[in-house]
């Protein structure tokens, strides 16, 4: 049975024909290419490398970048791509978010002309993969406390430090490493194979299993003078990247919620207990009504966020609200759906438990739920509660 995407408030009518076509093309691709094997990859703890070339062929990598052979797609269409990818798996969406929003976007925004020419077309074609090294073992929510350091040398810079929880970290050809140079944060492009640079996959995850999560270790890593981002210094560099990526996560989380909801809705229609389908029970209907309401709210918020971004009016706080809200409710929905599927809900025959486990990461990375709460609290009251 084909997936029926919930669209209770007929938001389809608010999309352009182009946006709908992009979404439908990615939706079909996810249905035919991601869903059949993703459960096996998840259990094996492997990223489906074979899909990278296909995603590149479709044009999904850095689709929002304008120029350098990239399509320059609008934010709503880009958001819809991420929604559909995460309908498949959060790991697939994370791969695309990191490549596009956390590596290609900053190269485009802060990089030198040479860096853009060298990396953007190749990354769009999927011939080069990137990762974003901000978080460290001891500095997650507080990136300003980072310990990774850069020192100027005669030929360039030397980097020392460690980065952790880095999506695409091991497979990456280039890592965007944020490090302090004379006490100020700067971005450096570090290439695979540079002496002293180790990329090591993290094992034993219960979440995002179909995703490459790695540690980056930098031990006296020498990079040339042109490896630094000329266009930005200070924490606003990485934070601007995160604003880009977080808006995409809001769309992605909605996609995961939609997948769970659709699966649970079908399941209760078929599952007969005490002589009739579960769908006819009040407790079940209450859950469905609640979930559809929350999904609809996420969709409305995401669409508006995309339109604001299109108009150049989106604020980081709006992004925080959308990311926080979507991840929270998506996780609640995944848990509820897992419950509705009973024992079947814990198996790989269904998607709900995989999404549920993934969403534990999605609600944590790129600003935890609590951090986004404090960003909103700061915006509302004018008083910072972080420190």
């Amino acid at each position, binding site marked *: 049975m084909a997936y029926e995407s919930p669209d209770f408030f007929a938001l389809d009518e608010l999309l352009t024909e*182009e946006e709908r*076509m*992009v979404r439908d*093309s990615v939706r*079909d691709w996810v249905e035919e290419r991601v869903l059949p094997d993703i459960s096996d990859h998840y259990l094996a703890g492997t990223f489906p490398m074979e899909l990278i070339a296909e995603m590149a*062929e*479709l*044009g999904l990598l850095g689709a929002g970048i304008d120029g350098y052979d990239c399509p*320059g*797609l609008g934010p709503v269409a880009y958001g819809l791509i991420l929604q559909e990818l995460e309908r498949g798996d959060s790991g697939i969406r994370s791969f695309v978010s990191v490549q596009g929003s956390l590596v290609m976007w900053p190269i485009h925004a802060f990089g030198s002309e040479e860096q853009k020419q060298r990396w953007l077309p190749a990354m769009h074609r999927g011939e080069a993969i990137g990762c974003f090294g901000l978080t460290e073992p001891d500095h997650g929510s507080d990136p300003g406390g980072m310990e990774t350091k850069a020192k100027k040398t005669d030929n360039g810079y030397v980097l020392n430090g460690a980065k952790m929880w880095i999506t695409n970290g091991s497979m990456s050809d280039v890592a965007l490493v944020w490090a302090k140079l004379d006490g100020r944060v700067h971005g450096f492009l570090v290439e695979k194979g540079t002496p002293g640079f180790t990329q090591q996959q993290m094992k034993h995850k219960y979440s995002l299993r179909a995703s490459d999560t790695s540690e980056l270790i930098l031990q006296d890593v020498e990079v040339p003078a042109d490896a630094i981002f000329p266009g930005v210094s200070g924490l606003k560099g990485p934070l601007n990247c995160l604003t880009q990526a977080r808006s995409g996560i809001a769309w992605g989380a909605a996609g995961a919620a939609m997948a769970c909801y659709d699966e649970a809705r079908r399941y209760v229609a078929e599952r007969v207990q005490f002589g009739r389908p579960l769908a006819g029970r009040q407790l079940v209907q209450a859950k469905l009504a609640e979930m559809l309401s929350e999904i609809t709210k996420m969709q409305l918020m995401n669409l508006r966020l995309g339109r604001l971004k299109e108009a150049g009016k989106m604020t980081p706080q709006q992004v925080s609200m959308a990311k926080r809200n979507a991840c929270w409710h998506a996780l609640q929905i995944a848990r509820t759906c897992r419950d509705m599927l009973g024992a079947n809900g814990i198996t790989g025959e269904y998607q709900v438990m995989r999404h549920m486990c993934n969403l534990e990461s999605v609600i944590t990375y790129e600003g935890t739920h609590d951090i986004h709460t404090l960003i909103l609290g700061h915006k509302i009251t004018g008083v910072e509660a972080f420190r």
Partner: protein
Amino acid sequence: MDIIVCMKRVPDSAAKITVAGDAKSIEQDGVDHVISPYDEIAVEKALQLKEAHGGTVTVVCLGVAAATKEIRQALAMGADQAVHLKDAGGNRGPLEIAQALAGVIKGRACDLLLFGKQSIDADNGAVGVMVARLLDLPVVSLVAQLDVADGRATVHRQSEVGTEVIEVTLPAAFTVQRGLAEPRYPKIKGIMQAKKKPLEEIDAPAPAGTMALDKLEPPAAREGGRIVGEGKDAVGELVRLLSQEAKVLS
């Protein structure tokens, strides 16, 4: 090489089809439409031939105003231009459809004319060969393999009795089937270019009214299965039912 592909907008095969209140049409609410799958294969094959040999791909669609969506889909896949024969409604039999299509194809540059072997809604399997006849083109139906070289096409025509290998001089028409090509997913760049590609809109001739749809009925609901027994003991009864009732054994 200039290729023209005729394509039809049809309800998605995954859609739940119900008969509308007038008992003459299907309920359109909530029904997605797509390019008829065999036509989509024809579009894909045309694009592959263009990529290998150069030339142009034009899609022609006789359909309601909303068929623009499916036409854009073909343009997003990579077709260069499209002709939309706008249908204001009314019934048309296969011959009338063929006449309308032949009318707009006549006079256009065309080395290969491709059709799906049949649409998945009307299932007549007639339009392609009729258009070829009206345009005086040689035609091969049920094509599962198609290669072009030196102004000739070598095709495999696959039917229940086997495969015929046929050589045809171009220009020629072909109706295609599954196995010929695997339709691609429209790429982002293709989708973005689609809206800038030429789409010619022409009003379709009014239907002659020689054919009317009288009544549409859903197929009868299937009867439930029957368990005639278990294990070895059931064999005798099963054989009796298969030969006497279902008449599939003799």
